[in-house]
């Protein structure tokens, strides 16, 4: 007998796939784009959920990895477009698979370097320092004019995937949905592995983990790097969705939004980010249609969720989590 959470998760997965397919054949491509946005933001938040939900590392700087992934896509595509070699005579590329590899590599490297310093701290220091590092990259992107600086960098034609017409909304959605599914499988495997068990133990009691002979710092660093990699892939997809990268992908509001998605859905839950992204994007769309001041009401709703609905959406529906 599957638990209520599993049934709810399955429903979410089917819903996120069925609606855009139906909308695409019904001639409503806008809803496909909306669903693509949900899938991409979910993937970014699944990445953050590894650090935040499993490891208890409240990173307020994941926009850094999201933006690095986005810039990886933008920079590679712009070099492929102009024909100028990128570095050491290597050309740019328009192949999504190569771009994803570069994005993961760059995101992972950045997460490693940032994690090396920030993971020496904990609690409120960690929150502020991850924020500060993300700001550092944000200001660098703004003041470095080679790739658009403050104005951002356009991607003239969406990047390519072998055998798929990525310019059409539905195939691109399916690519994003496939990667999201991969991300969720990874999260689940990770959660149930020995490593995941150690990571969750670190969240609950770091001292005890250290006393049985596991070094918490290395566990946290590895989790932070994997988390940054996943978020970076989502960033590359997001750049392709908008066909545009700008420093706003690196902004602190973006980091905040990713945290919001997770808490809205349910911290540490497998499908928490998906539920959160669905609610957030639809709320944004619906409120945006009703009032110009949608951010005001979004703020009120978020405040209500934090104060009165602990455990997020999945917590409300599936009951309190077992994890503590």
């Amino acid at each position, binding site marked *: 007998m599957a638990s209520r959470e599993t049934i709810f998760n399955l429903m979410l997965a089917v819903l996120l796939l069925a609606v855009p397919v139906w909308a695409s054949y019904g001639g409503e491509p806008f809803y496909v784009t909306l669903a693509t946005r949900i899938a991409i933001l979910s993937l970014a938040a699944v990445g953050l959920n590894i650090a935040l939900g499993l490891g208890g590392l409240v990173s307020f700087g994941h926009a850094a990895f999201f933006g690095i992934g986005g810039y990886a896509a933008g920079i590679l595509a712009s070099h492929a477009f102009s024909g100028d070699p990128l570095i050491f005579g290597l050309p740019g590329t328009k192949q999504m698979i190569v771009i994803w590899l570069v994005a993961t590599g760059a995101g992972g490297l950045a997460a490693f370097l940032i994690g090396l310093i920030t993971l020496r701290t904990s609690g409120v220091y960690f929150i502020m320092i991850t924020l500060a590092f993300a700001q550092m990259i944000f200001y660098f992107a703004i003041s*470095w004019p080679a790739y658009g600086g403050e104005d951002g960098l356009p991607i003239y034609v969406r990047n390519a995937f072998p055998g798929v017409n990525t310019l059409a909304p539905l195939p691109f959605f399916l690519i994003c949905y496939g990667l999201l599914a991969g991300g969720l499988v990874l999260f689940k495997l990770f959660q149930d592995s020995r490593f995941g068990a150690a990571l969750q133990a670190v969240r609950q009691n770091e001292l005890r983990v250290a006393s049985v002979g596991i070094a918490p710092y290395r566990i946290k660093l590895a989790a932070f790097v994997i988390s940054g990699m996943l978020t970076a892939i989502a960033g590359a997809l997001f750049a392709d969705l908008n066909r545009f990268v700008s420093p706003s992908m690196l902004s602190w509001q973006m980091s905040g939004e990713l945290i*919001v998605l997770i808490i809205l859905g349910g911290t540490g839950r497998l499908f928490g980010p998906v539920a959160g992204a669905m609610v957030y994007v639809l709320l944004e769309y619906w409120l945006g249609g009703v009032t110009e001041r949608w951010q005001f009401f979004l703020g009120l709703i978020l405040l209500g969720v934090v104060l009165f609905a602990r455990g997020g959406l999945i917590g409300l529906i599936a009951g309190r989590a077992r994890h503590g």
Partner: protein
Amino acid sequence: MQTALIIEQLLNGLQFGVMLFLMAAGLTLIFGVMGLINLAHGSLYMVGAFACATVAAWTGSFWLGLIASLAAAAAAGAIVELVVIRRLYERDHLDQVLATFALILIFSEGTRWVFGSFPLYLDIPALLQGTVPLPGGSRYQLYRLAIIGAGVAVAIGLFLLISKTRLGMRIRAGESDREMIGALGVDVATLYTLVFALGAALAGLAGAMVGAIQSVQVGMGEPVLILAFVVIVIGGIGSIKGALIGAILVGVTDTMGRFLLPQTLMLFMPPSQAALIGGAIASMLIYLLMAVVLALRPRGLFPASG
């Protein structure tokens, strides 16, 4: 000429640092006493600036505007504390981050609703217009010197408040053991509201004073908020002394970096490239400073005890 320019930039850095101190002092006080991370502190800075600009436009007096900024920010702080923040003290930092993030959305959009999207302007008061001579022959804006003076006065006042008065004693006691002072008959809830309003008033004052040299607009608080975070991380969270030293360090490093780095690089590369690279590195300099401080002392320069 060069020394005059350097003195001028140093004073600019000092003024920037003093302003950061006003923000950081409130943040660090609120964190030290209540253990709360308040992202909405930048919104209180914005409230102060808007209150000052509005009242100054109505009455024609900057000074009335300054009083209004203190009152408005303190009132906004007290209301927010009573309605929202006091439910968050027992929660973990994640909930605090999210709730105060929501408060930023509400404050920013609410302000845009009332005042529109166009920036307001605030004039420097007549008394403080003009410049004063500097050694080396150049002149410096009197108003910026006044900001430095006001900041130093607030720092001294805050030091006296915390170390010499009964309220300060209670604040310090609240930092070390809130249950004990509650048991001794101190009304902890009121004390917390007071501390939050005090921090808010300091942020509002900073916003009002800076409003006269920059434009008053929605979103002006968040960049300053993030710098204030850097300041208290460098100084040690919960320490007023750390906030002061951290703020001056950050203010001077940032200003001097933007001034000196491009010039230094120009000695061994073409000017256009030097300006580019120098500018990019300068914008990251304070974060590098923070990284170095943390690598050496993970709890900041002056970690608060306990």
